[in-house]
């Protein structure tokens, strides 16, 4: 094969030869991965856009219906419920995880004997499978004899929430569980960010008599800005597409109290076989994530140029 390449390349002007050669070499490296990537990620991704404008279920032939799926979406009560629940989850999950992860990182960013043990412990929940996580937290949140409610009782709460068994408290329970699971992951990102802050800043602040609290607000937080921004963007994307935790922990229930958008996509598309309609929901989900991310980038630009 190499022979064929050099021969055909020698016909063209000598300067172009390396370019052709390199294109073929380069693609030969990329191709094995690209074939799989194009076939199973890129094409489905593009297909999702087209599907959203089709009426298609498992039995009938696809038919172009324009915006009909989206019109139907606006009349679908489940869509509004799922949208509200997704926002609810995001509004709880993003700030809580951010604060917990940052707190852990600052607490664990010191030279103490055995600090590595604590870092490992904080990261443990993240490598635990969601099924195991859901199983344990559902037990902890048991309304009658669960440790969480026993603790609340001991603290003087006479009528503790029924958590996953109640429509009002199932989402908070899911949020607590997801914060517990994800904080270790973002802690690692924050720890990496903390390493980049020059130690001299802290020394100088100490000399000027700044306390630990002041040092945190005046040095640590401003210097961590790029990391914090990155973490917020990641958390946002992650929150809007939440699916597996919900499926294994509450399956959208009780009632529709924890039904989220990604789960609606799954139900309509894979369980019910309404390919077109579910793709319309997926497209809306994607556009929301994109819009929020773009807004975050804009805000970040504006405040960093200020």
């Amino acid at each position, binding site marked *: 094969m190499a022979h064929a390449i050099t021969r055909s390349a020698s016909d063209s002007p000598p300067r172009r030869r390396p370019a052709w050669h390199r294109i073929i070499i380069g693609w030969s490296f990329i191709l*094995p*991965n690209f074939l799989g990537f194009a076939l199973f990620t890129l094409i489905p991704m593009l297909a999702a856009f087209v599907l959203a404008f089709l009426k298609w279920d498992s039995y009938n032939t696809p038919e172009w219906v324009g915006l009909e799926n989206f019109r139907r979406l606006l009349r679908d009560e489940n869509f509004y419920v799922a949208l509200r629940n997704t926002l609810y989850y995001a509004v709880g999950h993003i700030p809580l995880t951010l604060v917990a992860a940052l707190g852990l990182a600052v607490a664990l960013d010191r030279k103490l004997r055995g600090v590595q043990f604590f870092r490992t412990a904080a990261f443990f929940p993240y490598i635990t499978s969601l099924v195991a996580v859901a199983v344990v937290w559902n037990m902890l949140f*048991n309304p009658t004899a669960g440790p969480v409610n026993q603790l609340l009782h001991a603290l003087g709460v006479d009528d503790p929430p029924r958590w996953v068994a109640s429509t009002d408290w199932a989402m908070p329970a899911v949020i607590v569980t997801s914060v517990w699971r994800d904080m270790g992951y973002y802690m690692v990102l924050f720890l990496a960010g903390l390493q980049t802050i020059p130690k001299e800043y802290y020394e100088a602040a100490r000399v000027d008599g700044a306390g630990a609290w002041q040092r945190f607000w005046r040095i640590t937080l401003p210097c961590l800005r790029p990391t914090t921004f990155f973490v917020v963007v990641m958390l946002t*994307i992650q929150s809007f597409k939440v699916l597996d935790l919900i499926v*294994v922990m509450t399956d959208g229930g009780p009632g529709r109290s924890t039904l989220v958008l990604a789960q609606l996509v*799954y139900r309509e598309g894979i369980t019910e076989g309404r390919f077109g309609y579910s793709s319309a929901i997926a497209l809306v989900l994607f556009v929301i994530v994109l819009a929020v991310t773009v807004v975050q980038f804009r805000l970040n630009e504006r405040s960093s140029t200020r």
Partner: protein
Amino acid sequence: MTALPDAPPAVAPPRPPGRSASPRSRGPRLVRTALAYVCLLTVALLVLVPFASMVSSSLKRNNEVLTVPVEWVPREFRWSNFVEIWDRIPMTTYLGNSVFLSGAITLLQLLTGSFAAYGFSKVRFPGRDALFLAYIATIAVPWQAYMVPQYIMMQRAELTNTYWSIILLQAFGAFGVFLMRQYYMSIPDDLCEAARIDGLSEYGIYWRIMLPLSKPALASLALLTFVNTWNDYMGPFIYLTSNELWTVQLGLRSFVGQYDTEYAMIMTGAVLSVLPIVVLFLIGQRYFIRGIATSGLK
């Protein structure tokens, strides 16, 4: 919260410029260290309580799991739970399936990912960076947005309810390419140039120089991929319907669905499903954390 200062800032005296280690400052420092440890221990306890309750419940009788007040240590350790679970559900099959799936996907991801990463980092050709940008862009698109087209494809190809569906969908991820490329970029081009002058082909450079040099990155990618695949629920949940193909996650979930009051057995299963990953993580922790810290992406 634990980041709170060890002493209120107002009370803390400004340090003398010389910073001489006077014997007087040793006392407060000891207290401070002790306080820091107390804070850390409290946090660690809060983080680890769910694990403790999982392990302790797995060694109890079913009716001893949810008691008032909570018993953290079982009255008698029922190790027999860990024998019984193998009879209750086909645990060997599930574990074997999980190992096979995770292993196959990790291997393919490592091979194709590092191979493509070489093309993206060390071979210059037109269109390369645009293509790489397309790769990166797809990482930001939620998988949930295109899971239905993927499903339709697999259904038409009659690959649902086979391992092929999961392997094909997960083995060529853009993430692996991204992680490996980041690492290759840190290896100087001069090294490749020198090898080229010595007459090594591009494939030779990849195989003899880049691969051995990138062992830490390969270890990171292998661990991340293996753990993610092992823990994956939605993939197997969507595609695998026959019991004999199920992974540990599916098997455990189905057991929970059928016997939701057998808390002890459920926790035993949970412990068994988490144990391999915990061991793997403890062995390769360094690479795992580094992989996340450098890429920042899942």
